């Protein structure tokens, strides 16, 4: 039987990226995917005839440009079209619009508060300061503070140096930023509830915390640290949906000779003599390899794909305690035409931005209270886009696709497991809220795909449906991700590695975990490194 140099479990974007780099370095690589299609949560699917859309992740910003260039993803078909701005509607028929143009943004903010409009500059500068710090570490392996290895000590010293470079006040402000709630943070800048609510969304997306939970300011950063064409914080649409990212990565992988096998549900990592030697599928098929890389989340990896007896006890314990909470749902809506939002002026460019309808931090916090109580938010936060206004490939001309990301939706309900009826009730909550801001919307609906954490878990394989493969709280970031002592992509068993979003620097379709893991694997195999350095961003 053929023996591979490396097997990657899961053809999500990180698995594909990891495999592409291993293949680029000359390894014989096989990617095994449980589903009949690749991409994991980075997919475009035609679940309603004629509509091919991103049914999980839906916008693109964090995908590291170093990887895009190095793997020649544009040549392999990836095209990212930037969009800008956002809008939050009010029940009273007004809105707050966020524009890319500074002065237009200023005027719109000043319409609500002159003070806030000016404070936005201070806010942007401070967030940019934090962003610059973290961006340096996206394409690196986090140093281990408990280690005495020269490499780790050097890494820690460099980390300390980039901190001290910020000056004393700057450093303390950074520490504050990382430990504060997004609500408290925004309260220090803005007076207008609507503006705060608009800004706060990025602090809770995909996260089982409320706007007043400490640590959520960092989550905001996670959504601001990407860039499109060098414009930091900008987001874009992948033409053809997010599946284009996976397809381009797969095409790049294949160009280096890598293989992908779908419908291959990995059941076990085979461990012999304390070494990973291959994997066994659910149907009994076995594949052998010297290196096994898991793109699955830490819980699925260690609690489902290993015999507990093959693992050190602390890893099982830490995997159990790893926080990976489902908190988000999503509605994918096929539309017969473009709905109108009466609050917006005719042909407003805000139609092509992310749209929201939360007016205050309290409202958002109450949405979280519902989640804590084990139910979906009765008045949810949503992040809604109509990408077909930009992307002509997703639906027939004149038809539209609306993607509605919903926060909060629990993976387990207080009143028992999810049922189709409950899922529909969740969908109805969102649709009803939406219809309040767009009266003609319901008449245009052709099809609705309702996704709760339950669907995401079962279909994509993300435990509890957590979109980041683990909460982005500080106890699970940097050298703590996924667990302290295992943040350098190496698993607890020799020859076994992790490359998913559950590792540093986390989720959001960055592909950095996959690339970073490849660098570590190549180092262990004493192969020349083919993974690019992060851009110097002075």
């Amino acid at each position, binding site marked *: 039987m053929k023996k591979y140099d490396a097997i990657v479990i899961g053809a999500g974007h990180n698995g594909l990226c990891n495999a592409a780099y291993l293949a680029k370095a000359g390894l014989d690589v096989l990617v095994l995917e449980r589903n009949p299609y690749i991409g994991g949560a980075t997919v475009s699917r035609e679940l309603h005839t004629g509509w091919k859309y991103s049914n999980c992740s839906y916008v693109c910003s964090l995908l590291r440009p170093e990887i895009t260039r190095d793997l020649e993803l544009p040549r392999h078909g990836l095209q990212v079209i930037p969009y800008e701005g956002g809008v939050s509607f009010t029940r009273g028929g007004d809105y707050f619009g966020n524009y890319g143009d500074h002065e237009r943004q200023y005027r719109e903010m000043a319409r609500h508060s002159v003070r806030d409009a000016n404070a936005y500059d201070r806010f942007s500068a401070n967030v940019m300061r934090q962003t610059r710090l973290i961006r340096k570490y996206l394409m690196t392996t986090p140093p281990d503070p408990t280690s005495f290895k020269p490499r780790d000590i050097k890494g820690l010293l460099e980390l300390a140096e980039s901190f001290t470079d910020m000056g004393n006040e700057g450093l303390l402000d950074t520490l504050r930023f990382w430990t504060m709630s997004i609500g408290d943070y925004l309260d220090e800048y803005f007076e207008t509830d609507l503006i705060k609510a608009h800004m706060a969304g990025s602090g809770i997306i995909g996260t089982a915390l409320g706007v007043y939970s*400490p640590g959520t300011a960092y989550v905001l950063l996670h959504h601001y640290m990407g860039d499109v064409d060098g414009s930091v914080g900008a987001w874009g649409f992948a033409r053809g949906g997010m599946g284009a990212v996976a397809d381009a990565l797969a095409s790049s992988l294949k160009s280096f000779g890598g293989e992908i096998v779908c419908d291959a549900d990995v059941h076990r990592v085979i461990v012999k003599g304390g070494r990973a030697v291959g994997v066994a599928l659910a149907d009994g098929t076995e594949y052998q390899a010297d290196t096994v890389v898991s793109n699955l989340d830490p819980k699925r990896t260690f609690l489902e794909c290993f015999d507990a007896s093959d693992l050190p006890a602390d890893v099982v314990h830490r995997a159990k305690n790893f926080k990976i909470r489902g908190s988000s749902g999503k509605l994918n809506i096929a539309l017969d035409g473009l709905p109108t939002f009466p609050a917006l002026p005719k042909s407003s460019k805000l139609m092509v931005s992310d749209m929201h309808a939360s007016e205050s931090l309290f409202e958002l916090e109450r949405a979280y209270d519902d989640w804590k109580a084990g139910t979906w938010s009765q008045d949810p936060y949503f992040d809604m886009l109509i990408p077909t206004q930009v992307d002509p490939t997703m639906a027939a001309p004149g038809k539209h696709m609306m993607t509605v990301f919903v926060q909060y939706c629990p993976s387990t309900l207080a009143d028992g497991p999810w049922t189709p009826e409950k899922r529909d009730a969740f969908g109805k909550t969102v649709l009803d809220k939406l219809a309040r801001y767009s009266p003609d919307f319901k008449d245009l609906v052709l099809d609705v795909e309702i996704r709760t954490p339950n669907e995401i878990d079962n279909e994509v394989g993300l435990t509890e449906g957590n979109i980041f493969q683990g909460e982005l709280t500080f106890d699970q970031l940097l050298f703590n991700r996924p667990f302290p002592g295992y943040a350098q992509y190496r698993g607890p068993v020799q020859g076994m590695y992790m490359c998913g979003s559950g590792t540093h620097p986390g989720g959001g379709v960055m592909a950095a975990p996959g690339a970073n893991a490849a660098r570590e694997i190549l180092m262990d195999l004493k192969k020349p490194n083919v993974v690019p350095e992060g851009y110097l961003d002075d």
Partner: protein
Amino acid sequence: MTDALNKGSYDTIIIGAGHNGLVCAAYLAKAGRKVLVLEAASQPGGAAATREFHPGFRISSGAHLLTQLNPGIARELGLASHGLAYAARDLKTVALAEDGAHLVIDGASVSGVSASDAAAYGRFHTQNKRFGKVLDGFFSRRQPTLVDRSWDDAFSLLKLGWSLRRLGKDDMQDLMRVGLINIYDVANEHFDSELLKAAVAMDGVLGSHMGPRSPNTVYGYLHRHIGDAWGNTGPALVRGGMGALGQAFAAAARGFGAEIRCDSKVALVEMQGCRATGVTLESGETLLADTIISNADPKTTFEKLVGHPSLDAGFSRRVHNFRSRGVSAKLHLALDALPEFTGLDGALAGERLLLAPTMDHIERAFNHAKYGEYSQAPVMEVSIPTVHDDSLAPAGKHVLSAIVQFAPYALGQGWDTGKQAFKQLALDQLEQYAPGIGQQLLASELSTPVDLEREFGMTGGHWHHGEIALDQALLMRPMPGAHQYSTPIPGLFLCGAGSHPGGGIMGLAGRNAAEAVIKHQSNGKERAA
């Protein structure tokens, strides 16, 4: 330099005779400073106070249990010789269950739970004690600054680094993880018993605008349990109420030569050429000194005593944004007899009693506070000191003191209308656990955060003088520009709970401040020389 400015007969004035002010005074006086402590109330002690709230019934009207008094300070100040006596020490914690299936925590052991929970608690307790030892090293010194650091700061950092390394890899990894997370997850990871989890969670949220699910509550727990690292297995009760502790601190300070003037409320810090040179009392009297140390909370100090106009605007903004939203009310009851808690052995009635059935219950109670409402089903920490101390009530009668949460300082409807209703909710809650307690009631009193603010001069009625959240703790406390006990105003220092390491009658803020002031002055002399 000193001669030119020293027009009074004191070189140091301390604003506020709360315990940290008194500790600071004692150490400075011990070091030869001429110290005057000015106190607004008619007796020293601050929130370490005993007050008669009903004829013949006295209560610790601020803090009621002593959990964190630093033993080194108690020894160095000779508090015992100055009258500090304990009515009880190392109290157990009883987590009350409505059905009477209580559990009892005594140091590292817990009864009333499964064997696995009991074992888990033991491990949890010992690990936290090890964490406490690391914190102790950090709490007992001026917090370092990370950039432009002095040798002293570098030494503090090395010491911290060393104590972390000494924890060993596993503990260090655990501390890095739990230090930032919430007590809800940690309790769930360790225990099965809901009641035990709730008891643990209470220690993470008492006095804080946080629920068990709020990140940072593990830090709150460790802060509260620092006493474990000093050899306590539970809180203590001061004979004569907390006021007696306040008196002992005052006697110790006087013993070293400090002078304490009560009924002397400071209205303003006097400034000359942008330097603090003295204080003016509400009476109009002005007193001058080289060094002014404020034991008042940061907001009171900077907003009222100094005033924003004398500060840099950026610092003003930091002061304004400092969060000190008190959420704890104090309930004081005069009782005709010892209340009977369902299923509770009478011998345990004098222990520390917790009324919090589950973590979700606490969380729901907290939810209200976020929106400016009081909890519909408040949670409580109850103490009946008269079980151990007959000096507080007539023979056979009792007083009950409880911390009741959550009672937000800025209650939407206002405390004028809300107070009576909230008190009733608290009494109803007690009645559920101690049926008939209502009939034993001779008098009752509820101190809302607004009342506590008035009684003790603490902004927001917050006993830590400001939220113990990580962005306001450790290196940052109380705020950049005023950490390390000095302030942007030359000659003005801080020594209160608003400073590192925070509140809870430890005395460390006062002692660290005294050391920082002495060091600052000797550095200044060196520079001048």
